[in-house]
């Protein structure tokens, strides 16, 4: 009995339970038009019988593989095959369910599809986490996944799905808003880094400035985003009306300017706090030695303190980037653009597909940014391994 239990993989149990429920839940949703309530369609009514049967059998095999303690790459392979099969099946369901020549009907993935995808994505992530691929490999895997999704999108396999129907009627604005979203998230990050890192250095060097600046930024961080937009409307309108040239630069009480400024303000605390934390973590002996060998204050900062603090500062950049990609969605509320435009339009029209058109790219971008920056942080860290435990071991 004990022997038998030992051969069961614990994560596999979770995967199996989710996937098993996913097989009986509605695989796809059918709606006569884009705003009515959808009706669930089970695996066999959503897909041609042969494809349904293949999916069922493959799922069963993958579930058993997930439960057993098999080599990780085998399980990874199984999960990736399942994700590919699911991607194919849902595209196929759209064509199978949509009546010939009907442009109003909408087919979207049902809870069954999402649960199955989530289960096998969990299995894939778990395998990857346990295989501990080196940082460059993680970036390569991410690139491969994005390339695969791009390929599926380009192939037209998913064109029948509701989210892509929403896309096709908004293709122009989609890319425009995507550009704005990226500008908001990356631009505010860049400005926050340019302002926040020197501010962090100031906080590190000038004790009285530290608590004042950090407390102020803490307060900014606690202001709800919608309230912050409201607070900014007044001053920015005043600037637009009274500062020559400001209005030409696009500064107005609503629109991109307050959104950009708000994201910038939210980004400052993580940037400054991580810079201060990174500098505080520089070993005291390294600082003493830097002064002792005759470095000027500036040389000590650029040659010793900043390089040693860099991984922590980079972690701050990672936090800010992921936070900004998500927060930029709110910008749409005040006409700042970005993917939030689709989310709020969709909410207004109770068209969930439109909400997804804004939400899915946002989540994907945030996820990709997290993976890439985590990998970079890890790539940068080994050169500094000596600043932590490694050095203590060496001297012990």
């Amino acid at each position, binding site marked *: 009995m004990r022997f038998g239990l030992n051969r069961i993989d614990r994560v596999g149990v979770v995967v199996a339970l989710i996937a098993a429920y996913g097989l009986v839940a509605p695989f796809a949703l059918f709606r006569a038009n884009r705003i009515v309530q959808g009706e669930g369609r089970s695996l066999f009514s959503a897909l041609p019988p042969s494809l349904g049967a293949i999916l069922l059998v493959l799922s069963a095999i993958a579930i058993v593989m997930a439960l057993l303690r098999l080599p990780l790459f085998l399980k990874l392979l199984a999960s990736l095959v399942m994700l590919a099969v699911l991607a194919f099946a849902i595209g196929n369901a759209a064509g199978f369910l949509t009546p010939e020549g009907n442009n109003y009907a909408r087919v979207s993935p049902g809870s069954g599809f999402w649960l199955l995808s989530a289960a096998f994505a969990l299995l894939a992530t778990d395998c990857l986490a346990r295989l501990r691929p080196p940082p460059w490999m993680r970036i390569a895997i991410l690139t491969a996944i994005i390339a695969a999704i791009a390929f599926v999108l380009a192939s037209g396999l998913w064109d029948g799905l509701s989210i892509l129907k929403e896309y096709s009627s908004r293709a122009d604005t989609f890319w425009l808003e995507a550009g704005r979203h990226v500008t908001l998230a990356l631009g505010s990050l860049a400005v926050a880094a340019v302002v926040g890192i020197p501010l962090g250095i100031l906080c590190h060097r000038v004790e009285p400035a530290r608590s004042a600046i950090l407390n102020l930024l803490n307060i900014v961080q606690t202001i709800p985003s919608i309230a912050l937009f409201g607070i900014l409307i007044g001053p920015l309108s005043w600037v637009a009306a009274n500062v020559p040239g400001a209005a030409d630069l696009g500064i107005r009480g609503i629109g991109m300017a307050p959104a950009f400024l708000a994201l910038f303000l939210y980004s400052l605390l993580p940037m400054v706090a991580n810079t201060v934390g990174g500098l505080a973590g520089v*070993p005291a002996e*390294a600082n003493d030695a830097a*002064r*002792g060998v*005759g470095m000027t204050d500036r040389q000590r900062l650029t040659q010793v303190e900043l390089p040693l603090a860099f991984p922590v500062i980079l972690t701050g950049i990672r936090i800010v980037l992921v936070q900004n990609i998500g927060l930029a969605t709110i910008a749409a509320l005040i006409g700042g653009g970005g993917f939030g435009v689709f989310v709020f339009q969709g909410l207004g029209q109770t068209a969930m597909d439109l909400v997804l058109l804004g939400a899915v790219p946002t989540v994907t971008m945030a996820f990709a940014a997290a993976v890439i920056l985590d990998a970079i942080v890890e790539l940068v860290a080994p050169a500094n391994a000596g600043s932590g435990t490694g050095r203590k071991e060496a*001297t012990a």
Partner: protein
Amino acid sequence: MIEIDAISKAYGDVTVVDNVSMTIDAGSITVIVGTSGSGKTTLLRMINRLVEPTRGTIRIDGEDNGAIAPHELRRRIGYAIQGHGLFPHRTVAENIATVPKLLGWPQDRIDARVEELLKLFQLDPVAFGPRFPHELSGGQSQRVGVARALAAEPNLLLMDEPFGALDPVIRAKAQDDLLAIQKHFGTTIILVTHDMEEAFGLADRIAVMDGGRLLQYATPTEMLANPATDFVASLIGTAERPFRLLALNPVEKAMEPGVAEGEPISGEASQRDALAELLWSGRPALPVTGKDGIVAGRVTVDSLLKQARPA
């Protein structure tokens, strides 16, 4: 020559270095000894202006160190600290090259100097140059720390408890290496320690500090013969005195004509080692060899015992 002239350092009402004056000869090793809080490290750090004095002046070869920009002063003075203080993000070679780089030496001269120093400290330049500090043992890190301090060929080397983090065996080796290096370059060394054994092993002159004051500044022999205060005497250790004295002098000073049985001892070895050998082997006398390795005489227990008291 370093002239420390009535130097004091106070933090608010607390005086950590109180009116200390001393003159340090060029090319000598001076060891500043004291308990923690005695002001010894502060005194050392005022020489390269890591600490600015409240009163008094320090002249290095006649030049007031307060008249030189601190970073330029420090580039001329070697500085090695406990736990070596290597830059963790730089390789061994880059660490050693720090000061020559700051001084703007041409790259080929820097490379040659780094290689020379690594060889001098018995570290293979090819194997150790590209390593990072966390890949080194304690003894290796310490050697790299001293090599870095010596990289720009300073006339003066300041060392703050440089061997504090080493185990006893490696520490003894590092001390021997330091003596050899000092002979090789003729560098003036000022070293701070709380270890009296280390002070007697290395110093030409010892400075004893307590509560910010310089209690005594003398050669080891003088200090053994005439400790200035009870505190100095207790720091030396009453029971240790004869053995410390024997350890300071070479066997050849106690050598007498004659022959003896058994394994000979070098005339340059310490009298303490000779006595230890005699006691352990139970022999009455040891043959002593000269610099040429040929037996030149012998040393007896009696002759050594006469040396174990102040003259």
